[in-house]
């Protein structure tokens, strides 16, 4: 495998890891506050559709992005209402959101555009274009560093950089601010937060809202960055993979980056069976490669990767005790 191929695979890794990373950080905020969210998938899907649809109609991807974020946050609000205000079962609420999104997106797309549940192909300003970082062209010819900078680091869409910047930002908010301290506390022992005179409900809604915002970005990237339009079920289980990555990452932002890059790498490899064959010397079935990220998900969710301690109050609605 030559150097340029490696750069290409890593480049694909970053692009494929971005929606996972954004969704994973979304789940991180929610679960750190004690609200389990298996509805990441549904929120991404809703945002992917709304972003693409509104971008197609208005011709502006930014307007589309706002619509996508709005849709994801609305679903997050439903999840919050069910699991925080009405103290319902968080898993069931999440599943309901996934079904709702899977069905609604296709139905609405069909009645809106009549293209078999798709949105029209997007181009120009209706998509996120790539951003060339300064001097990319100038230093491309420098050996080693040149291609790494020009082809791997530069030339991604805006949301890729947003996703990468979210990692240190999440870390900072969580571990260096008052909000973060309270958020982590409410996921571990809401009674401690309540007796300190802080609103458990308020904090949890804030966390769920952030989750909606980030899944909104993740979905928007899928349909307007990675692809050029919405197709049925285009999230393809990424919400669940993000959850697996979150557990793998032990609910920590930097680990989350690592876990998502790993999953992204596996997905990138699946796109390049020729590279695998070149490296290993024999052919590996494409189906097996495609399945790899999902197999890893199952392995992680089954708890084979060390002991991960989830937030102690996760999944439990908070009820004041007597």
């Amino acid at each position, binding site marked *: 495998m030559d150097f340029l191929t490696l750069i290409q695979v890593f480049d694909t890794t970053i692009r494929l890891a971005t929606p996972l990373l954004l969704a994973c950080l979304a789940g991180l905020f929610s679960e750190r506050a004690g609200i389990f969210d298996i509805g990441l998938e549904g929120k991404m899907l809703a945002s992917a559709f709304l972003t693409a649809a509104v971008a197609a109609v208005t011709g502006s991807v930014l307007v589309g992005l706002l619509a996508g974020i709005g849709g994801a946050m609305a679903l997050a609000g439903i999840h919050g209402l069910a699991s925080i205000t009405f103290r319902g079962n968080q898993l069931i609420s999440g599943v309901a959101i996934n079904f709702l999104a899977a069905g609604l997106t296709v139905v609405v797309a069909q009645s809106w555009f009549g293209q078999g549940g798709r949105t029209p192909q997007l181009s120009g300003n209706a998509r996120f274009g790539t951003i060339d970082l300064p001097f990319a062209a100038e230093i491309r010819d420098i050996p080693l560093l040149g291609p790494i900078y020009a082809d791997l680091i530069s030339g991604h869409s805006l949301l890729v950089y947003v996703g990468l910047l979210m990692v240190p930002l999440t870390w900072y908010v969580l571990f260096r601010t008052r909000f973060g301290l309270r958020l982590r506390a409410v996921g571990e022992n809401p009674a401690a937060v*309540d007796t*300190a005179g*802080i609103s458990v409900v308020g904090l949890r809604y804030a966390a769920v809202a952030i989750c909606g915002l980030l899944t909104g970005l993740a979905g928007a990237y899928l349909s307007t960055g990675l692809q050029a339009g919405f197709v049925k079920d285009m999230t393809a289980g990424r919400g669940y993979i993000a959850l697996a990555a979150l557990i793998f990452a032990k609910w920590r932002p930097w680990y989350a980056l690592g876990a998502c890059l790993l999953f992204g790498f596996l997905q990138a490899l699946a796109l390049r069976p020729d590279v695998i064959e070149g490296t290993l010397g024999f052919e590996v079935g494409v189906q097996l490669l495609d399945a790899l990220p999902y197999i890893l998900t199952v392995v992680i969710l089954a708890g084979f990767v060390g002991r991960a301690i989830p937030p*102690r109050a996760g999944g439990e609605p908070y009820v*004041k005790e*007597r």
Partner: protein
Amino acid sequence: MTDQTPAIELKGISKAFGPVQANKDISIRVMPGTIHGIIGENGAGKSTLMSILYGFYRADAGEIWVDGRRTEIPDSQAAIRAGIGMVFQHFKLVQNFSVLENVVLGAEDGAMLRPSLAKARRELKDLAAEYELNIDPDARIEDIGVGMQQRVEILKALYRQADILILDEPTGVLTPAEADHLFRILKGLRDQGKTIILITHKLREIMEITDTVSVMRRGEMTATVQTAETSPPELAELMVGRKVLLQVEKVPPKPGKTVLEVENLRVVDSKGVERLRKIGFEIRAGEILGIAGVAGNGQSELLEVLGGYRRAEGTVRLNGKPLELAGRHANGRARRAAGVAHVPEDRHHEGLILDFSAWENVAFGYHDRPEFNKGLFMDNAAIKADAAAKMERFDVRPPHPHLAAKNFSGGNQQKIVVAREIERNPDLLLIGQPTRGVDIGAIEFIHEQIVALRDMGKAVLLVSVELDEIMSLSDRIAVMFDGKIMGERLPAETDERELGLLMAGITDTDKPHSEAEIEANLARRHASADKEA
């Protein structure tokens, strides 16, 4: 003293939960710079009253006056602003946060954490020096013992400038040495001018530390007296509403043949932690062996093994015949058939099915006996008649076998379990925390039943974290610490101090021991248990 303004004055507080009147027209004056005890049975309404004062509930009627000013306390934040701090029975700490983070949580100075933490670190140092509340600010809560955790709760309140400190059943989880230390801290706080409200059901604590005591019964405040002018029997009578025997009356034991022999009993839990470290003891007929110890030192595992629902290695013989510890017959049913009755420590999870009716609960474990069955079917009429008879003999109130178990009070629930187990004429009774969450009247009754069983020539293994209970019921006392039996004593030849040292894992009890030493020992065991986990 009467010309002073009370630190807290409650006027006519009432609170109902549905049809249950938890607090009825309660008025109380708590003077500044005193330790004011509130005593009452479980369900007397003490905790509800304090929750109202701390803004957890809103009273249906009544007024709260703090330092002579009428104060509305709609939420905890308002209580904190009014200078009221609360140390709950179950600590409200975040386990994987440091001491410092727990203290700061909710009382931060700005959006950024760093300056808040630095300020708290300085203030903790001052507070530690002032009140003998030494603690490592960077230790994680999950790594420190309960005594330390309680100090963190007190520090939290003091950090929020609390002048009035409410402690709800603070000694329930402490060793005697830790409780003594707590009392010294509280006296220190009082001498610095803080006002302390101590909620408890333990008469000894009231007598030892309070200046004034108020007694609650069934939601009402029945009396407020100066502690120096009252006595434990008088307080007990005020609490229960009738005369109560505080000391169990029993004749000297007449031990017979050995009923239970335990040798080299070893238990390793699912995390690989050794919970019982090859212990051995025996109990004879007509004898009560009391196992003392702080909760979590292997007593629960011992009961579970003997009760047949935890696997173990070693030898256990009942009446000379070995009991299976790991095989197919290591189950509760086989144990019952062999003559072992078991009143488990946790009646809600192990002793009863709360949603099932009392008559079903009275039959559990014995429902396959021939007298309860007609061919393939259960003879419900026979079971109900049996349950009704047992409930009457044990004075379970209300005497309705059809009522679900959850609708009985703690004491009556416990009577149901005890009736089920004792009335089957077992050779060995295992009984764990027989009076946890049980009111004084029922405690008296249950104690009498245990002693009566022993006088009938049965063997009793009693596990309790209440040292008073162990001291008054046992014929012999074994103390457990960290999965080992630290020693056996006769109740007449020992005292709380000696047992307390054994409970902290210190065997050379003749030497004087500093508190620091005891604490260090407890912390070490805590840390090692964690590491193994």
